[in-house]
C-alpha cells in the first residue's frame, strides 16, 4: 500500500495556509481569509474566489470537510470548514518538510 500522505505533497502555499488556519478549529470562509491575510500581511493576494476553489479541491482530496455552523454563529447558513485527520497529517508532513528546508537554509548560512 502506498503512503496516503505523499501524493499530496508539497502543498501549495494557499493550501498550507488553509490547513494551518483550520488546525485551530472550525471556521468559515471570511474568518479563514482574514486570518491568512493577517498572518501573511496580504502577501498572498488571496481573494474569496481562489480561496473557495482551493478549499473545494482540498475537500475533494479528503483533507477538509464542511461542517454545520456552530450554535454561537448568528448566520446559521454559513458553511464552516474543518480539517480531516488526513488533512492534519498532510499539514504536519508539509510543516516537517518546510522545517527540514529551513534547517538546510540555516546550515547554508542563508539566514545570516
Amino acid at each position, binding site marked *: 500500500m502506498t503512503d496516503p500522505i505523499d501524493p499530496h505533497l508539497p502543498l501549495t502555499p494557499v493550501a498550507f495556509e488553509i490547513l494551518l488556519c483550520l488546525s485551530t478549529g472550525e471556521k468559515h470562509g*471570511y474568518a479563514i481569509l482574514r486570518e491568512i491575510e493577517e498572518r501573511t500581511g496580504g502577501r498572498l493576494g488571496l481573494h474569496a*474566489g481562489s480561496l473557495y*476553489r482551493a478549499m473545494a479541491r482540498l475537500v475533494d482530496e479528503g483533507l477538509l470537510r464542511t461542517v454545520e455552523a456552530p450554535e454561537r454563529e448568528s448566520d446559521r447558513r*454559513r458553511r464552516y470548514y474543518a480539517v480531516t485527520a488526513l488533512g492534519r497529517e498532510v499539514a504536519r508532513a508539509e510543516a516537517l518538510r518546510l522545517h527540514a528546508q529551513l534547517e538546510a537554509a540555516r546550515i547554508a548560512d542563508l539566514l545570516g
Partner: protein
Amino acid sequence: MPARWAVALLRWILLLSPRSFRERDGAEILAVEEERIRARLAAGDRGGAVRVATGAALDLLKCASSEWWSRFPRWGGGGMDGWIRDLRYGTRALLRAPGFTIVAVVTIALGIGANTAIFSVVEAVLLRPLPYATPERLVTVLTEMRARGVTDFPLSPPTFQDVADGVPALEAWAGISTFEQPLAGEDGPPTQVATGFVTRNFLRTLGVRPALGRDFEDADVVPGDPNLTPGDPGFLQNSAILSHGLWQQRFGGDPEIVGRIIDLGGTPTEVVGVLPAGFRLLMPAELQLLSDLDLMVGSRLDFVGAPRNNVFLRGVGRLTPGATMEQLRDQLARVMGDMRDEFPIVRTADMHFVATPLHADLTASVRPMILALMGAVAFVLLIACANVANLFMVRSASREREIAVRSALGGDRVRIFRQVLMEGVLLGAAGGVLGIALAGLGVQLLVRLDPTNMPRLTDVALDGRVLLFTVGATGLACLLFGLVPAIQASRPDLVNALKDRGRTGARRSQRRVRDLVVVGEVALSLVLLLGAGLMIRSFAVLNDVDPGFDPVGLTTVRVSPPFAAYPTTEERVALTGQLQRRLEELPGVTSVAGAFPMPLDGNMVSGRWGTADAEVDPELFQQADMHFVLPGYFETLGTELIAGRTFTAVDQADSTSVAIVDRTLAEQAFPGQSAIGQRLLTRVTTTEPVWVEIVGVVEPRHHISLTAAPNPTMYFTDRYVGGNLSLTWAVRTAGVPISLDAIRAAVAELDPNAPVSDLLPMEAAVGSAMAPTRFALVLITVFGAMALTLAAVGLYGVLAYAVRLRAGEFGVRMAFGAERGSILRMVVGQGLALAGVGIVAGLGAATLLGGTMSSILVGVSPRDPITFVLVPVFFAGIAVLASAVPAIRATRVDPAVTLRRE
C-alpha cells in the same frame, strides 16, 4: 451603497463561470467579499475597499477561466497535459504513415494556397476601400444616349455646370479629362506627359491633399476660349500639380519646385504643388481616362460660354452625408428633365444620367471573373477536403481493430475522437503553412499574368486580412475533413471489428459515406473542368478573330510635335508629310502611315453621321467611330479595301471633303446599293452638319477589343481636322523590327522638341487585348487540372481500398474459375459507376451555374454542347485509368493464398 454596487459587479462576473462552481461557492464568495469590503469601509479605508473590490473582480475572472479549463478533462481527460499528449500522439501517428501524411498535406496546401491567392485578389480589388477620404460616398456620373445605344458618354462643360447647380445630394462635384501633351525644358528630353485636366476642386472632392505646395485655387482658373478642349493648340493652362513620380524623375525631387515655371504643351505653366507619393487615379476603364497621371492642370476654361456639343468631362461627385443614391438619381433626372425641355438633342437621343458608386463602377467589369475564380478555388478546396476525409476514413478503417481494442479495454470514446481530430488539426496546420507559401508564389504569378483590365492588381498581397481568411479556410477545412472520420472512428463497431473477420468487415454505412464523398468530388471537379473547357473554347474563338489588319511586322509609335510651334494647318500638314517620308527612308521599313486613333490603342473618337433623311429629321443621325488617317494607312495596316479607293496625297494636301467607311456603315447607310460616290452628313469640325463624299469602303476592324463586334466606322484624312492630332505612326518593316532610337533620330532631325513614345509591336497590342481571357483561361484550367487530379486520386484511393478489402472474395471467385477479365471489368465498372453518378450530378450543377460564367466567355454559350460532351467523355477516360490500377491488382490475387487465409 458602494459595497452593494461592488457586490453587484462581482455577481455579474460570477455569471461567466461554470454553473456548478457558481451554485456550490457563489453565494459564499459574494458574502465573504461583501464582508471584507464593508469592514474596510467601516474602518474609513475607502482605498482599501476599492483595492479589495478590484482584486476580487480580477480573481473571479481568473477563477472563471480556470474552472472552464478544468472542465476540459471531461473531454477525454488529462486537462491541458492530455491535449498535449494527444498532439504528440497525433504527430507520431502521422510520421508513422509518411505517404498518407505527405499526400494529405500537399492536397490541403493546394486547396488553401489557391484559395489564399485568389482571395488576395478579391481583397485588393473588390473589398479594400479606395485610397480616398470616405470612398464609399464617391460616385461617378455619366450620360448615356439610349436611342443611339451610346453608353459612358462624357459631359459638356455646361451640363457639368447644370449638375453642379441642381443636385444638392452631391456636396462636391468635380470634373476631369485626361490627355497627353509634350513637356519641354532643360530638365530632360522632350517627353509626353499624361495630363489630368481637372476642375479646381477635384483633389478636394477625392479628399487628397498635395504633399508639397498647395491645391488649385479659384485664381488658377481664368476664362479662356470656351470652344477649346484640353490638349487643343491654344488651350491655356497656367498652373500644374506634379505627380510624385514626375517630380522625382524629371526634376530630381527639387525641393524648390513649387513656383517654378515649366514649358507644358508650349505654354509656360507654374508648378503650384506635388501630389502625395501613393496617389493614383482609380477610375473605371469605360471612362477612358489615363490612370498614371504625370501631372494635373487647373485650366483656363470658361464653363459659362462653352458649347454643349463639346463633351469631354468625366464627373466625380461626393454624396452629401445622409443623401442616398436614390435621391441623387432623382435629382439628376430632374436636371435632365430641364435639359430635355430646352435641347432637342437630349430628347431625340433619349439622354439620361447614370450615377454609380465609384468602387462598384471601378470593379464592375472584373467582378464576374474574380467571383468565378473564387468559386473555382472554393471547389478545389472542397475537393481537397473530400479527398483528405476519404484518405482519413480509409486509414481509420484499417485502424479500426486497433481502435476497437482500445475501446474495449476502456479507452474513452471522446479521447479517441479527440486523437483523430487532433491528427486532422495537425494536417490542416501543416497544409495551411505550406498553402501560404504556395499562395505567395501564386500571387506573383497572378500579377505577372496581368489581365490588363484589373484595377489595383499591383496592390495584391498576402496581408493580414488575407491571412485571416486563410486561417478561417484552414479551420473550416479541418472541420470538414477531420470531423467525419473522427466521429466514425469514435464509434467503432466493436463486435464486428473484434471478430476474426473484422479486417474484411468494412461497414456498409462507412463505405456509403466514402462513395458519396467520391461522387461529390467527381461532380465538383467536372464543373471546374467544364469551366476550363469553355475557357479553352473562348480562347480558340478569340485566337481566330481576324482583327481586320495584319499585326505581324507592324510597330506603332507615338510622335507628338509641339503644335504651338506650328500655328497653321499648312505648317502642321507639311511637318506630318516630312515625317512620313523620313520614316519611310529608314532601313527595313516598307511602309509608314500615321493615324489617330490606332487600333487597340485604347483611344476612341465618336461622331455621328446621317443620310439625306437626317437633314429633315435629326433623330436619324447615328453613332460611328471616327478615325483620322494619312494616305497609305490602309495599305500599311493591311486593311482590305472592298470598293472604291483609299486616300491619296491629294486628299491630304487639299481640304477635300471625302471619307472612307467600313462595310458595316455602308450597309447601314445604303442597304443594297454601292456606297461609292454617295454622300453622308457629318459634324466633325463644324457645329452644323456638312456633306462628305464616300470614296471607299473597307472591311470592318476590331478597334477597342477583339471580343465586341466592331462599331460602324468612318475614316477621314488628318488634314480634314486641321492636322492638329498627335498621330500614332504605324511602321511596317520586313525582317528586323524598327528600334525606338532610329525613330527618335529621324524625328529629331525634323523637330528636336517632338517627344517619341509608346513604341509597341502591334502583335503585343493584340496580345494584351487577349489578356483578360488568357488570365481566366490559365487560372480556371490550372484549377480544373488540380480538381481532376484530386478527383482521380480520390477515385483511385476508394477503389484500391475496396479491392484490398475484397481480395478474399476475388480469390474465392477465381478459385471457382472466374476469368481475370471479369474481375477487371467488375472493378473498373464499379469505378465508372461512381464516376458516372458524379458526372451526371456535375453536368446538372454546371447547367445551373452556367450563367455565372457567361460574361467572361467569348463567342461560346455557357452550355456549349461540344464542351458538355467532350469533357465528360474525357473525364470518364480518366476514371477508367484511375480504376484500372486497383483492378489489375485485384486480378493478381493468388487464389491459393487468399483461400488459406480465409
